[in-house]
Protein backbone atom coordinates (compact mmCIF):
# COMPACT_ATOMS: atom_id res chain seq x y z
CA UNK A 1 0.00 0.00 0.00
CA UNK A 2 1.32 3.40 -0.95
CA UNK A 3 1.86 5.82 1.93
CA UNK A 4 -0.83 8.50 2.28
CA UNK A 5 1.59 11.25 3.29
CA UNK A 6 5.14 11.49 2.09
CA UNK A 7 7.99 13.94 2.46
CA UNK A 8 11.15 13.52 0.43
CA UNK A 9 14.31 15.43 1.30
CA UNK A 10 12.11 18.29 2.43
CA UNK A 11 14.12 21.49 2.91
CA UNK A 12 13.12 25.04 3.67
CA UNK A 13 15.65 27.83 3.76
CA UNK A 14 14.55 31.23 4.99
CA UNK A 15 16.51 34.28 4.18
CA UNK A 16 16.48 36.55 7.16
CA UNK A 17 16.96 40.03 5.80
CA UNK A 18 19.02 42.58 7.61
CA UNK A 19 16.53 44.50 9.67
CA UNK A 20 15.57 47.64 7.84
CA UNK A 21 12.80 49.84 9.04
CA UNK A 22 9.94 51.32 7.14
CA UNK A 23 8.77 51.04 3.58
CA UNK A 24 11.90 52.40 1.94
CA UNK A 25 13.98 49.99 3.95
CA UNK A 26 11.78 47.14 2.83
CA UNK A 27 12.10 48.19 -0.79
CA UNK A 28 15.85 48.43 -0.44
CA UNK A 29 16.13 44.97 1.08
CA UNK A 30 14.23 43.64 -1.94
CA UNK A 31 17.19 44.38 -4.11
CA UNK A 32 19.96 43.47 -1.76
CA UNK A 33 21.37 40.05 -1.01
CA UNK A 34 22.37 40.95 2.47
CA UNK A 35 21.12 38.77 5.26
CA UNK A 36 21.76 35.27 6.45
CA UNK A 37 20.19 31.97 5.59
CA UNK A 38 18.33 29.89 8.12
CA UNK A 39 17.70 26.24 7.32
CA UNK A 40 14.41 25.81 9.16
CA UNK A 41 13.85 22.34 7.75
CA UNK A 42 16.89 20.49 6.50
CA UNK A 43 16.38 17.43 4.32
CA UNK A 44 13.57 15.65 6.14
CA UNK A 45 12.12 12.44 4.69
CA UNK A 46 9.32 10.31 6.07
CA UNK A 47 6.24 8.47 4.93
CA UNK A 48 3.04 7.90 6.82
CA UNK A 49 0.59 5.09 6.12
CA UNK A 50 -3.15 5.54 6.18
CA UNK A 51 -4.54 5.40 9.69
CA UNK A 52 -1.30 6.18 11.52
CA UNK A 53 -1.32 8.57 14.45
CA UNK A 54 2.01 10.37 14.41
CA UNK A 55 3.35 12.70 17.05
CA UNK A 56 5.71 15.35 15.78
CA UNK A 57 7.95 16.71 18.51
CA UNK A 58 10.66 19.22 18.86
CA UNK A 59 11.64 22.30 20.83
CA UNK A 60 10.42 25.74 19.79
CA UNK A 61 11.98 26.87 16.55
CA UNK A 62 13.01 23.35 15.58
CA UNK A 63 11.02 23.50 12.34
CA UNK A 64 7.75 21.84 13.35
CA UNK A 65 5.44 24.59 12.10
CA UNK A 66 7.44 25.06 8.93
CA UNK A 67 7.06 21.35 8.17
CA UNK A 68 3.30 21.46 8.78
CA UNK A 69 3.01 24.54 6.57
CA UNK A 70 4.75 22.71 3.74
CA UNK A 71 2.60 19.62 4.23
CA UNK A 72 -0.56 21.75 3.93
CA UNK A 73 0.55 23.77 0.89
CA UNK A 74 0.90 27.07 2.78
CA UNK A 75 4.63 27.16 2.02
CA UNK A 76 6.67 25.90 -0.90
CA UNK A 77 9.74 23.83 0.01
CA UNK A 78 13.08 25.24 -1.09
CA UNK A 79 13.88 21.73 -2.28
CA UNK A 80 12.43 18.27 -1.90
CA UNK A 81 8.75 17.53 -2.13
CA UNK A 82 5.56 16.66 -0.35
CA UNK A 83 2.94 14.17 -1.46
CA UNK A 84 -0.49 13.81 0.04
CA UNK A 85 -2.43 10.95 -1.53
CA UNK A 86 0.17 11.07 -4.26
CA UNK A 87 -0.43 14.75 -5.10
CA UNK A 88 1.66 17.80 -4.37
CA UNK A 89 -0.13 20.34 -2.15
CA UNK A 90 1.98 23.01 -3.84
CA UNK A 91 1.14 22.14 -7.43
CA UNK A 92 -2.52 21.30 -6.82
CA UNK A 93 -3.26 23.28 -3.70
CA UNK A 94 -7.02 23.46 -3.98
CA UNK A 95 -7.40 19.80 -4.87
CA UNK A 96 -5.21 18.67 -1.97
CA UNK A 97 -6.55 20.96 0.76
CA UNK A 98 -10.05 19.72 0.00
CA UNK A 99 -8.86 16.36 1.39
CA UNK A 100 -7.08 17.85 4.42
CA UNK A 101 -8.13 19.04 7.83
CA UNK A 102 -5.97 21.58 9.65
CA UNK A 103 -6.16 22.94 13.19
CA UNK A 104 -3.84 25.63 14.47
CA UNK A 105 -4.27 25.66 18.22
CA UNK A 106 -3.31 29.30 18.58
CA UNK A 107 -5.96 30.76 16.34
CA UNK A 108 -9.43 29.73 15.41
CA UNK A 109 -10.56 29.17 11.86
CA UNK A 110 -14.16 29.83 12.72
CA UNK A 111 -16.05 33.07 12.14
CA UNK A 112 -15.42 35.03 15.32
CA UNK A 113 -18.72 36.88 15.56
CA UNK A 114 -21.02 34.15 14.30
CA UNK A 115 -22.60 31.17 16.07
CA UNK A 116 -20.60 27.95 15.68
CA UNK A 117 -23.40 26.48 13.58
CA UNK A 118 -23.07 29.27 10.99
CA UNK A 119 -19.37 28.56 10.60
CA UNK A 120 -20.12 24.91 10.02
CA UNK A 121 -22.73 25.71 7.41
CA UNK A 122 -20.28 27.98 5.60
CA UNK A 123 -17.61 25.29 5.67
CA UNK A 124 -20.14 22.74 4.46
CA UNK A 125 -20.84 25.02 1.49
CA UNK A 126 -17.14 25.58 0.84
CA UNK A 127 -16.37 21.87 0.84
CA UNK A 128 -19.55 20.93 -1.00
CA UNK A 129 -20.87 18.67 1.76
CA UNK A 130 -24.34 17.29 1.12
CA UNK A 131 -26.98 18.27 3.60
CA UNK A 132 -27.73 14.73 4.82
CA UNK A 133 -24.04 13.92 5.30
CA UNK A 134 -23.59 17.21 7.12
CA UNK A 135 -26.42 16.44 9.54
CA UNK A 136 -25.10 12.94 10.18
CA UNK A 137 -21.57 14.25 10.82
CA UNK A 138 -22.85 16.90 13.20
CA UNK A 139 -24.87 14.38 15.20
CA UNK A 140 -21.92 12.05 15.47
CA UNK A 141 -19.58 14.82 16.65
CA UNK A 142 -22.13 15.98 19.17
CA UNK A 143 -21.95 12.48 20.66
CA UNK A 144 -18.17 12.58 20.79
CA UNK A 145 -17.46 16.18 21.79
CA UNK A 146 -20.79 17.48 23.10
CA UNK A 147 -20.77 20.51 20.90
CA UNK A 148 -24.58 20.70 20.84
CA UNK A 149 -24.61 22.85 23.97
CA UNK A 150 -22.85 25.75 22.29
CA UNK A 151 -23.74 25.35 18.62
CA UNK A 152 -25.72 28.58 18.70
CA UNK A 153 -23.20 30.62 20.70
CA UNK A 154 -20.93 33.07 18.87
CA UNK A 155 -17.35 31.82 18.77
CA UNK A 156 -16.01 34.85 20.63
CA UNK A 157 -18.06 33.84 23.69
CA UNK A 158 -16.72 30.27 23.90
CA UNK A 159 -14.21 29.16 26.49
CA UNK A 160 -10.84 28.04 25.16
CA UNK A 161 -11.76 24.39 25.60
CA UNK A 162 -15.11 24.79 23.84
CA UNK A 163 -13.47 26.72 21.04
CA UNK A 164 -10.91 24.01 20.50
CA UNK A 165 -13.64 21.37 20.35
CA UNK A 166 -15.53 23.50 17.85
CA UNK A 167 -12.37 23.92 15.76
CA UNK A 168 -11.72 20.18 15.76
CA UNK A 169 -15.20 19.47 14.46
CA UNK A 170 -14.68 22.12 11.79
CA UNK A 171 -11.52 20.35 10.66
CA UNK A 172 -13.33 17.01 10.43
CA UNK A 173 -16.57 18.24 8.89
CA UNK A 174 -15.63 17.27 5.35
CA UNK A 175 -14.29 13.89 6.55
CA UNK A 176 -10.72 14.47 5.44
CA UNK A 177 -8.52 11.36 5.23
CA UNK A 178 -5.58 13.35 6.63
CA UNK A 179 -5.58 15.88 9.47
CA UNK A 180 -2.74 18.07 10.74
CA UNK A 181 -3.03 19.34 14.30
CA UNK A 182 -0.70 22.04 15.56
CA UNK A 183 -0.77 22.22 19.37
CA UNK A 184 -4.45 21.36 19.83
CA UNK A 185 -4.23 21.09 23.61
CA UNK A 186 -2.19 24.22 24.29
CA UNK A 187 -3.44 26.18 27.27
CA UNK A 188 -6.25 23.75 28.14
CA UNK A 189 -6.99 22.31 31.58
CA UNK A 190 -6.73 18.59 32.32
CA UNK A 191 -10.43 17.85 31.77
CA UNK A 192 -10.54 19.58 28.39
CA UNK A 193 -7.33 17.85 27.35
CA UNK A 194 -8.71 14.45 28.28
CA UNK A 195 -11.88 15.07 26.31
CA UNK A 196 -9.96 16.08 23.20
CA UNK A 197 -7.63 13.11 23.51
CA UNK A 198 -10.47 10.62 23.70
CA UNK A 199 -12.07 12.26 20.67
CA UNK A 200 -8.87 11.99 18.67
CA UNK A 201 -8.38 8.40 19.69
CA UNK A 202 -11.92 7.47 18.76
CA UNK A 203 -11.91 9.24 15.41
CA UNK A 204 -8.54 7.75 14.48
CA UNK A 205 -9.79 4.29 15.35
CA UNK A 206 -13.25 4.42 13.78
CA UNK A 207 -12.72 6.66 10.76
CA UNK A 208 -9.16 5.64 10.13
CA UNK A 209 -8.12 9.27 9.79
CA UNK A 210 -4.41 9.71 9.44
CA UNK A 211 -3.31 12.26 12.03
CA UNK A 212 -0.08 14.18 12.42
CA UNK A 213 0.06 16.03 15.70
CA UNK A 214 2.58 18.55 16.97
CA UNK A 215 2.56 19.18 20.67
CA UNK A 216 4.61 20.11 23.69
CA UNK A 217 2.62 17.82 25.91
CA UNK A 218 4.29 14.46 26.58
CA UNK A 219 0.96 13.08 27.79
CA UNK A 220 -0.64 13.81 24.41
CA UNK A 221 2.02 11.72 22.76
CA UNK A 222 1.89 8.96 25.29
CA UNK A 223 -1.85 8.48 25.11
CA UNK A 224 -2.38 8.96 21.42
CA UNK A 225 0.54 8.32 19.15
CA UNK A 226 1.65 5.02 17.74
CA UNK A 227 4.65 6.66 16.22
CA UNK A 228 6.85 9.58 17.14
CA UNK A 229 9.05 11.79 15.01
CA UNK A 230 11.45 14.18 16.68
CA UNK A 231 12.89 17.18 14.90
CA UNK A 232 15.67 19.40 16.13
CA UNK A 233 17.54 22.14 14.31
CA UNK A 234 15.59 21.23 11.17
CA UNK A 235 16.65 17.58 11.12
CA UNK A 236 14.73 14.45 11.93
CA UNK A 237 16.60 12.94 14.87
CA UNK A 238 14.20 10.14 15.73
CA UNK A 239 11.44 8.30 13.91
CA UNK A 240 9.91 5.24 15.52
CA UNK A 241 7.72 3.96 18.31
CA UNK A 242 7.22 5.72 21.60
CA UNK A 243 8.76 2.76 23.41
CA UNK A 244 11.81 3.07 21.23
CA UNK A 245 12.05 6.74 22.08
CA UNK A 246 11.92 5.99 25.78
CA UNK A 247 14.59 3.38 25.46
CA UNK A 248 16.72 5.61 23.35
CA UNK A 249 16.46 8.30 25.96
CA UNK A 250 16.25 6.54 29.26
CA UNK A 251 15.59 9.94 30.74
CA UNK A 252 14.83 9.60 34.42
CA UNK A 253 11.36 10.13 35.77
CA UNK A 254 11.19 11.78 39.16
CA UNK A 255 9.11 10.50 42.07
CA UNK A 256 8.50 12.37 45.30
CA UNK A 257 7.09 10.36 48.19
CA UNK A 258 5.66 11.80 51.34
CA UNK A 259 5.67 9.27 54.17
CA UNK A 260 3.42 9.43 57.19
CA UNK A 261 6.59 9.36 59.30
CA UNK A 262 10.29 9.78 58.35
CA UNK A 263 11.67 6.41 57.14
CA UNK A 264 14.31 4.84 59.33
CA UNK A 265 16.86 4.33 56.55
CA UNK A 266 17.43 5.80 53.13
CA UNK A 267 15.27 3.80 50.62
CA UNK A 268 17.38 1.52 48.45
CA UNK A 269 16.40 0.15 45.04
CA UNK A 270 16.88 0.46 41.26
CA UNK A 271 16.89 4.27 41.42
CA UNK A 272 19.01 7.16 42.55
CA UNK A 273 18.19 9.05 45.69
CA UNK A 274 17.84 12.75 44.90
CA UNK A 275 16.95 14.06 48.32
CA UNK A 276 15.68 12.99 51.70
CA UNK A 277 14.32 15.60 54.07
CA UNK A 278 12.31 14.40 57.03
CA UNK A 279 9.38 12.41 55.72
CA UNK A 280 9.78 13.57 52.07
CA UNK A 281 11.94 11.44 49.78
CA UNK A 282 12.68 12.22 46.13
CA UNK A 283 14.14 9.61 43.78
CA UNK A 284 14.86 9.40 40.06
CA UNK A 285 14.37 6.15 38.12
CA UNK A 286 14.63 4.89 34.58
CA UNK A 287 11.24 3.95 33.10
CA UNK A 288 12.84 1.61 30.60
CA UNK A 289 14.13 -0.57 33.43
CA UNK A 290 11.25 -0.62 35.89
CA UNK A 291 7.66 0.56 36.06
CA UNK A 292 6.35 3.29 38.32
CA UNK A 293 4.04 0.82 40.09
CA UNK A 294 7.01 -1.41 40.87
CA UNK A 295 9.00 1.52 42.25
CA UNK A 296 6.15 2.73 44.42
CA UNK A 297 5.59 -0.80 45.72
CA UNK A 298 9.20 -1.09 46.80
CA UNK A 299 9.20 2.37 48.37
CA UNK A 300 6.15 1.31 50.39
CA UNK A 301 8.34 -1.11 52.32
CA UNK A 302 10.02 1.84 54.04
CA UNK A 303 6.88 3.23 55.66
CA UNK A 304 3.27 4.27 55.10
CA UNK A 305 3.01 6.46 51.99
CA UNK A 306 0.74 9.46 52.40
CA UNK A 307 1.22 11.17 49.04
CA UNK A 308 2.93 10.52 45.72
CA UNK A 309 4.01 13.06 43.15
CA UNK A 310 5.55 12.00 39.87
CA UNK A 311 7.19 14.18 37.22
CA UNK A 312 7.94 12.98 33.70
CA UNK A 313 10.96 14.33 31.87
CA UNK A 314 9.81 17.34 29.89
CA UNK A 315 9.83 17.26 26.18
CA UNK A 316 12.65 19.68 25.69
CA UNK A 317 15.00 17.51 27.69
CA UNK A 318 13.81 14.32 25.96
CA UNK A 319 14.46 15.86 22.58
CA UNK A 320 17.79 17.18 23.68
CA UNK A 321 18.76 13.72 24.86
CA UNK A 322 17.68 12.11 21.62
CA UNK A 323 19.53 14.72 19.68
CA UNK A 324 22.72 14.18 21.64
CA UNK A 325 22.54 10.45 21.08
CA UNK A 326 21.30 10.49 17.51
Amino acid sequence: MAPIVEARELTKVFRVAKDRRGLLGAIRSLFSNEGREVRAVDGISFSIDAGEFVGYLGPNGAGKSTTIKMMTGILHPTSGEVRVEGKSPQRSRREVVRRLGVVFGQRTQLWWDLPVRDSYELLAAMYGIKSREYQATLTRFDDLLEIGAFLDVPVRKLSLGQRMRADLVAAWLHRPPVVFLDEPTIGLDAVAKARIRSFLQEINRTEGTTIMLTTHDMDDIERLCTRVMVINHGRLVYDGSLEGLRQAVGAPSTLRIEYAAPPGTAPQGPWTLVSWEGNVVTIAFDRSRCTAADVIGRLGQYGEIRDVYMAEPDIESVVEQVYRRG
Partner: protein
Amino acid sequence: MSILRIYARLAVASLRAKMQYKLDFLVNTLLWGALTTADFLMLAAIMLRFERVGGWDIYEVGLLYGMAWIATGLYRTFASELHNFDQYVVHGEFDALLVRPWPTLLTLLGRNLEPHRLGAVLQGAIILGLSARHLLAVGTLDRFGLVYVLASSFFGALIPFSLSLITAAFAFWVVRTGDLLTFTIHAPISASQYPLTIYPRWLKTLLLSVLPVGFINFIPVQYLLGKGGGPWALVFSPAVAVGFTLAAYGLWRAGERRYQSTGS
Protein backbone atom coordinates in the same frame (compact mmCIF):
# COMPACT_ATOMS: atom_id res chain seq x y z
CA MET B 1 -21.09 29.92 -10.95
CA SER B 2 -20.27 27.99 -7.81
CA ILE B 3 -17.66 30.66 -7.10
CA LEU B 4 -20.37 33.30 -6.99
CA ARG B 5 -22.51 31.11 -4.78
CA ILE B 6 -19.69 30.65 -2.28
CA TYR B 7 -18.94 34.37 -2.34
CA ALA B 8 -22.60 35.16 -1.66
CA ARG B 9 -22.67 32.77 1.29
CA LEU B 10 -19.54 34.31 2.77
CA ALA B 11 -20.79 37.85 2.15
CA VAL B 12 -24.12 37.18 3.84
CA ALA B 13 -22.28 35.65 6.81
CA SER B 14 -20.10 38.74 7.13
CA LEU B 15 -23.20 40.96 7.14
CA ARG B 16 -24.79 38.81 9.81
CA ALA B 17 -21.66 39.16 11.92
CA LYS B 18 -21.84 42.94 11.41
CA MET B 19 -25.43 43.04 12.60
CA GLN B 20 -24.28 42.04 16.07
CA TYR B 21 -22.81 45.50 16.40
CA LYS B 22 -25.68 47.76 15.40
CA LEU B 23 -24.34 50.82 17.18
CA ASP B 24 -21.03 50.48 15.35
CA PHE B 25 -22.88 50.30 12.08
CA LEU B 26 -24.92 53.40 12.89
CA VAL B 27 -21.99 55.50 14.06
CA ASN B 28 -19.77 54.36 11.19
CA THR B 29 -22.50 55.28 8.72
CA LEU B 30 -22.81 58.75 10.23
CA LEU B 31 -19.05 59.35 10.42
CA TRP B 32 -18.38 58.14 6.90
CA GLY B 33 -21.34 60.24 5.74
CA ALA B 34 -19.82 63.28 7.47
CA LEU B 35 -16.50 62.63 5.76
CA THR B 36 -17.97 62.33 2.27
CA THR B 37 -20.16 65.38 2.86
CA ALA B 38 -17.12 67.34 4.01
CA ASP B 39 -15.33 66.26 0.87
CA PHE B 40 -18.22 67.48 -1.25
CA LEU B 41 -18.40 70.73 0.68
CA MET B 42 -14.89 71.68 -0.43
CA LEU B 43 -15.75 71.03 -4.05
CA ALA B 44 -19.03 72.94 -3.69
CA ALA B 45 -17.26 75.92 -2.11
CA ILE B 46 -14.93 76.21 -5.07
CA MET B 47 -17.55 75.58 -7.75
CA LEU B 48 -20.19 77.90 -6.29
CA ARG B 49 -17.65 80.69 -6.07
CA PHE B 50 -15.99 80.33 -9.45
CA GLU B 51 -18.65 78.53 -11.52
CA ARG B 52 -16.03 76.98 -13.79
CA VAL B 53 -12.91 74.87 -13.31
CA GLY B 54 -10.79 74.40 -16.41
CA GLY B 55 -13.80 75.21 -18.61
CA TRP B 56 -16.14 72.74 -16.86
CA ASP B 57 -19.20 74.08 -15.06
CA ILE B 58 -20.58 72.85 -11.74
CA TYR B 59 -22.92 70.27 -13.33
CA GLU B 60 -20.21 68.84 -15.54
CA VAL B 61 -17.84 68.55 -12.60
CA GLY B 62 -20.75 67.10 -10.61
CA LEU B 63 -20.92 64.28 -13.13
CA LEU B 64 -17.22 63.48 -12.62
CA TYR B 65 -17.59 63.73 -8.87
CA GLY B 66 -20.66 61.50 -8.73
CA MET B 67 -19.04 58.81 -10.87
CA ALA B 68 -15.83 58.86 -8.85
CA TRP B 69 -17.72 58.45 -5.57
CA ILE B 70 -20.03 55.69 -6.83
CA ALA B 71 -16.98 53.75 -8.01
CA THR B 72 -15.00 54.40 -4.82
CA GLY B 73 -17.96 53.69 -2.55
CA LEU B 74 -18.57 50.35 -4.25
CA TYR B 75 -14.93 49.43 -3.99
CA ARG B 76 -14.76 50.33 -0.29
CA THR B 77 -17.98 48.42 0.41
CA PHE B 78 -17.00 45.19 -1.28
CA ALA B 79 -13.22 45.13 -0.99
CA SER B 80 -12.55 46.55 2.46
CA GLU B 81 -10.43 43.54 3.44
CA LEU B 82 -8.19 44.32 0.49
CA HIS B 83 -7.82 47.90 1.66
CA ASN B 84 -6.05 46.80 4.85
CA PHE B 85 -4.62 43.60 3.48
CA ASP B 86 -1.06 44.06 4.73
CA GLN B 87 -2.25 43.08 8.22
CA TYR B 88 -2.85 39.55 6.91
CA VAL B 89 0.78 39.26 5.88
CA VAL B 90 2.12 40.97 9.00
CA HIS B 91 0.25 38.58 11.32
CA GLY B 92 0.51 35.47 9.15
CA GLU B 93 -3.27 35.21 8.84
CA PHE B 94 -2.96 34.61 5.13
CA ASP B 95 -2.26 30.96 6.06
CA ALA B 96 -5.91 30.48 6.96
CA LEU B 97 -6.94 31.48 3.42
CA LEU B 98 -4.51 29.05 1.82
CA VAL B 99 -5.91 25.97 3.56
CA ARG B 100 -9.35 26.46 1.97
CA PRO B 101 -10.14 24.89 -1.39
CA TRP B 102 -11.03 28.23 -3.08
CA PRO B 103 -9.09 31.10 -4.59
CA THR B 104 -7.64 33.18 -1.75
CA LEU B 105 -9.00 36.43 -3.17
CA LEU B 106 -12.54 35.06 -3.06
CA THR B 107 -12.38 34.00 0.57
CA LEU B 108 -10.63 37.24 1.48
CA LEU B 109 -13.28 39.50 -0.06
CA GLY B 110 -16.06 37.40 1.43
CA ARG B 111 -14.74 38.00 4.92
CA ASN B 112 -15.82 41.56 5.31
CA LEU B 113 -18.36 43.80 3.62
CA GLU B 114 -18.81 47.34 4.86
CA PRO B 115 -22.36 48.33 3.96
CA HIS B 116 -22.02 51.62 5.84
CA ARG B 117 -19.89 52.82 2.94
CA LEU B 118 -22.82 52.54 0.56
CA GLY B 119 -23.70 56.02 1.82
CA ALA B 120 -20.90 57.30 -0.39
CA VAL B 121 -22.50 55.55 -3.36
CA LEU B 122 -25.80 57.17 -2.48
CA GLN B 123 -24.25 60.62 -2.20
CA GLY B 124 -22.43 60.12 -5.49
CA ALA B 125 -25.67 58.97 -7.11
CA ILE B 126 -27.60 62.01 -5.84
CA ILE B 127 -25.00 64.46 -7.10
CA LEU B 128 -24.74 62.60 -10.38
CA GLY B 129 -28.54 62.61 -10.68
CA LEU B 130 -28.89 66.35 -10.05
CA SER B 131 -26.06 67.15 -12.45
CA ALA B 132 -27.41 64.85 -15.15
CA ARG B 133 -30.92 66.34 -14.87
CA HIS B 134 -29.58 69.80 -15.59
CA LEU B 135 -27.30 68.60 -18.39
CA LEU B 136 -30.19 66.70 -20.02
CA ALA B 137 -32.39 69.80 -19.78
CA VAL B 138 -29.87 72.08 -21.47
CA GLY B 139 -29.09 69.37 -24.02
CA THR B 140 -25.38 68.87 -23.25
CA LEU B 141 -26.02 65.24 -22.38
CA ASP B 142 -28.36 62.87 -24.21
CA ARG B 143 -30.21 59.83 -22.92
CA PHE B 144 -27.61 57.42 -24.25
CA GLY B 145 -24.97 59.44 -22.44
CA LEU B 146 -26.89 59.15 -19.17
CA VAL B 147 -27.17 55.38 -19.46
CA TYR B 148 -23.50 55.14 -20.31
CA VAL B 149 -22.51 57.30 -17.35
CA LEU B 150 -24.53 55.15 -14.94
CA ALA B 151 -23.09 51.92 -16.30
CA SER B 152 -19.61 53.35 -16.32
CA SER B 153 -19.83 54.38 -12.65
CA PHE B 154 -20.32 50.75 -11.70
CA PHE B 155 -17.77 49.44 -14.17
CA GLY B 156 -15.41 52.14 -12.92
CA ALA B 157 -15.31 50.49 -9.49
CA LEU B 158 -12.98 47.94 -11.09
CA ILE B 159 -10.28 50.58 -11.32
CA PRO B 160 -9.92 51.48 -7.61
CA PHE B 161 -10.42 47.77 -6.93
CA SER B 162 -7.47 46.86 -9.18
CA LEU B 163 -5.32 49.63 -7.73
CA SER B 164 -6.08 48.26 -4.31
CA LEU B 165 -5.39 44.69 -5.44
CA ILE B 166 -2.00 45.77 -6.76
CA THR B 167 -1.21 47.57 -3.52
CA ALA B 168 -2.29 44.52 -1.53
CA ALA B 169 -0.13 42.27 -3.70
CA PHE B 170 2.87 44.51 -2.91
CA ALA B 171 2.43 43.43 0.70
CA PHE B 172 3.78 40.02 -0.32
CA TRP B 173 7.08 41.72 -1.10
CA VAL B 174 7.36 44.69 1.23
CA VAL B 175 4.94 43.55 3.99
CA ARG B 176 3.69 46.96 5.11
CA THR B 177 1.79 48.91 2.48
CA GLY B 178 -0.32 51.32 4.55
CA ASP B 179 1.69 54.31 3.37
CA LEU B 180 1.41 53.29 -0.28
CA LEU B 181 -2.38 53.59 -0.30
CA THR B 182 -2.16 57.37 -0.32
CA PHE B 183 -0.37 57.22 -3.67
CA THR B 184 -2.28 54.41 -5.23
CA ILE B 185 -5.84 55.19 -4.09
CA HIS B 186 -6.44 58.33 -2.04
CA ALA B 187 -4.57 60.88 -4.12
CA PRO B 188 -5.64 59.55 -7.56
CA ILE B 189 -9.31 59.36 -6.50
CA SER B 190 -9.18 62.92 -5.19
CA ALA B 191 -7.63 64.03 -8.45
CA SER B 192 -10.27 62.23 -10.51
CA GLN B 193 -13.01 64.46 -9.10
CA TYR B 194 -11.89 67.30 -11.36
CA PRO B 195 -11.25 67.41 -15.10
CA LEU B 196 -7.78 66.02 -15.72
CA THR B 197 -6.96 68.85 -18.12
CA ILE B 198 -6.23 71.16 -15.18
CA TYR B 199 -3.24 69.10 -13.99
CA PRO B 200 0.38 69.41 -15.03
CA ARG B 201 1.27 67.05 -17.87
CA TRP B 202 3.23 64.57 -15.70
CA LEU B 203 0.32 64.19 -13.31
CA LYS B 204 -2.20 63.79 -16.13
CA THR B 205 -0.02 61.14 -17.77
CA LEU B 206 0.22 59.29 -14.47
CA LEU B 207 -3.55 59.34 -13.99
CA LEU B 208 -4.08 57.86 -17.45
CA SER B 209 -1.42 55.16 -17.27
CA VAL B 210 -0.03 53.68 -14.08
CA LEU B 211 -2.92 54.94 -11.94
CA PRO B 212 -5.66 54.97 -14.59
CA VAL B 213 -8.41 56.71 -12.61
CA GLY B 214 -9.05 58.97 -15.61
CA PHE B 215 -10.89 56.07 -17.22
CA ILE B 216 -13.47 55.89 -14.42
CA ASN B 217 -15.00 59.18 -15.46
CA PHE B 218 -12.96 61.82 -17.24
CA ILE B 219 -12.22 60.05 -20.55
CA PRO B 220 -15.80 58.98 -21.36
CA VAL B 221 -17.46 62.11 -19.92
CA GLN B 222 -15.15 64.38 -21.87
CA TYR B 223 -16.42 62.80 -25.08
CA LEU B 224 -20.08 62.60 -24.01
CA LEU B 225 -20.09 66.32 -23.19
CA GLY B 226 -18.42 67.19 -26.49
CA LYS B 227 -15.23 68.43 -24.85
CA GLY B 228 -12.78 66.26 -26.76
CA GLY B 229 -11.77 62.69 -27.45
CA GLY B 230 -13.64 60.38 -29.79
CA PRO B 231 -16.18 57.57 -29.68
CA TRP B 232 -13.27 55.21 -28.95
CA ALA B 233 -13.35 56.59 -25.41
CA LEU B 234 -16.61 54.76 -24.75
CA VAL B 235 -15.13 51.38 -25.66
CA PHE B 236 -11.67 52.05 -24.38
CA SER B 237 -12.67 52.94 -20.80
CA PRO B 238 -14.37 49.66 -19.86
CA ALA B 239 -11.63 47.79 -21.75
CA VAL B 240 -8.99 49.50 -19.61
CA ALA B 241 -10.96 48.69 -16.46
CA VAL B 242 -11.18 44.99 -17.34
CA GLY B 243 -7.62 44.74 -18.64
CA PHE B 244 -6.25 46.46 -15.57
CA THR B 245 -8.20 44.13 -13.30
CA LEU B 246 -6.78 41.08 -15.05
CA ALA B 247 -3.25 42.46 -14.79
CA ALA B 248 -3.79 43.23 -11.10
CA TYR B 249 -5.02 39.69 -10.49
CA GLY B 250 -1.93 38.34 -12.23
CA LEU B 251 0.24 40.33 -9.84
CA TRP B 252 -1.80 39.05 -6.90
CA ARG B 253 -1.22 35.45 -8.00
CA ALA B 254 2.49 36.10 -8.36
CA GLY B 255 2.50 37.60 -4.86
CA GLU B 256 0.69 34.60 -3.48
CA ARG B 257 3.34 32.30 -4.93
CA ARG B 258 6.03 34.47 -3.45
CA TYR B 259 4.38 34.28 -0.03
CA GLN B 260 4.38 30.51 -0.30
CA SER B 261 8.03 30.38 -1.14
CA THR B 262 9.27 32.86 1.45
CA GLY B 263 6.93 32.28 4.36
CA SER B 264 5.77 34.77 6.88
